[in-house]
């Protein structure tokens, strides 16, 4: 059994569909259904579930607002909040018997890291324009351009590998303990899995948020837009 990557479950023509993709589809379907059901039951006076969702979304918005300018909060919030929510659920999916966390697959974490990389430039260019945005690569000196470029790729690679490494190692450790010690012994490790899932989701999302905030800062007036 290969636990370091996704296993091909079936193929659609030439395309192999791995368990990582299948689990991701399940997560997407679950979250979509939950969102759909919740959005049908929104009331001015919130119930228990609506209060929880509103509280979580308000906390996410506050966290984003602490880093980003007020004008960019609502634009970036869906991406960052989805990162937090998806990675959290994907990390916790490993606790379900028979399932593996999609984030223990480097293909999935690389996809998320690439999306963060692309979104950083997307939001930066949308906010400042091509010229202003690209100018920050040669600031304060053109000599730093290679370092900036290398930094862009390495931090993206670090995002992908950090999440992948943590979740993969956690699942591997849980599997080994389960194989060696037997029933109920891995329970503390599973609790650690929950904590690790929350922490890794938070770290991934916060790093993405910080990268986007760095892209939104104008090189000419770095403090022109104060974080709200």
């Amino acid at each position, binding site marked *: 059994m290969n636990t370091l990557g996704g296993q091909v479950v079936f193929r659609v023509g030439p395309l192999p569909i*791995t368990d990582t993709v299948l689990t*991701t589809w399940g*997560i*997407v379907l679950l979250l979509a259904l939950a969102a759909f059901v919740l959005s049908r039951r929104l009331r*001015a006076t919130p119930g228990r579930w609506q209060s929880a969702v509103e509280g979580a979304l308000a906390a996410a918005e506050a966290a984003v607002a602490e880093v980003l300018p007020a004008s960019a909060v609502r634009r970036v919030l869906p991406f960052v*909040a989805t990162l937090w929510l998806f990675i959290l659920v994907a990390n916790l999916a490993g606790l379900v018997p028979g399932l593996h966390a999609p984030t223990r697959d480097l293909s999935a974490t690389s996809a998320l890291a690439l999306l963060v990389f692309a979104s950083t430039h997307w939001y930066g260019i949308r906010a400042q324009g091509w010229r202003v945005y690209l100018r920050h690569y040669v600031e304060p000196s053109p000599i730093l351009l290679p370092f900036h470029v290398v930094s862009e790729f390495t931090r993206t690679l670090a995002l992908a590998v950090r999440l992948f490494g943590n979740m993969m190692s956690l699942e591997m450790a849980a599997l080994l303990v389960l194989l060696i010690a037997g029933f109920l012994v891995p329970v503390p490790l599973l609790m650690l899995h929950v904590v690790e899932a929350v922490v890794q989701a938070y770290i991934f999302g916060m790093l993405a948020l910080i990268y986007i905030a760095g892209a939104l800062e104008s090189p000419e007036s770095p403090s022109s837009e104060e974080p709200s």
Partner: protein
Amino acid sequence: MTFDWTTFLLEILNFLVLVWILKRFLYAPVLAVLDARRQRLLDEAAKAEQLQRQAGELKTGYESRLAQWEKEREGLRQSLDGELEQARAAGMEKLKQSLADAEAKARARTDALATAREQALVREAATEAYGAAAAMLGRLASPALTARIADVFAEDLAALPEADRAVLRRAAAALEAGASAEIAMAHDLDEGSRGRVVAALTAACDRTLPVVFREVPELLAGLRATVGECLLQANLSDELAFFRRHG
């Protein structure tokens, strides 16, 4: 550790689809609800602030009106005090006047009573004096006194003023034929005295009159001559009556 490009691409697609779904069905409606609630809270806060401001203005207005009312009340109270003082002074003045009037009336009534009492006393004294004088003169009365008074009567007739004499003459002339003069006397007079009286009367009337003598003891002493409508009194009883009337 393997890297699968299909998984990589499908994961990108899956995540983008998830972002769209969540943005469409979760973030947008929940954020709209949150925004509506925040806006409602802001509106209510603004409304509360406006109400508080209005309450403050109303409070200020009420305090101002209360102060104004207090001022007006104080002014009215002072005016009322003044009116009450004037009314009290007027009442006191009226009462004083009334008391003075009552006092004057009482004094007048007292004076009148005193005067009446004094007059009554005078009348009583006069009556008693009359009684006493009448008793004393009654004891002094005698035929000699009557004769003496008859002589005095005759002398006075002789010295009668002309105006009285004329009146007497007219009364005597007015006597009808056969009528006579009457002389009432307290005591019977002798012929000499009767003759002097008749002579004096005839001289005063300037004619001879028939005279009838009659004895009337109530006269005490002296006589009373009646000539027609003229009455000539010369006796103690008539004198006492005169003094009693004019005492």
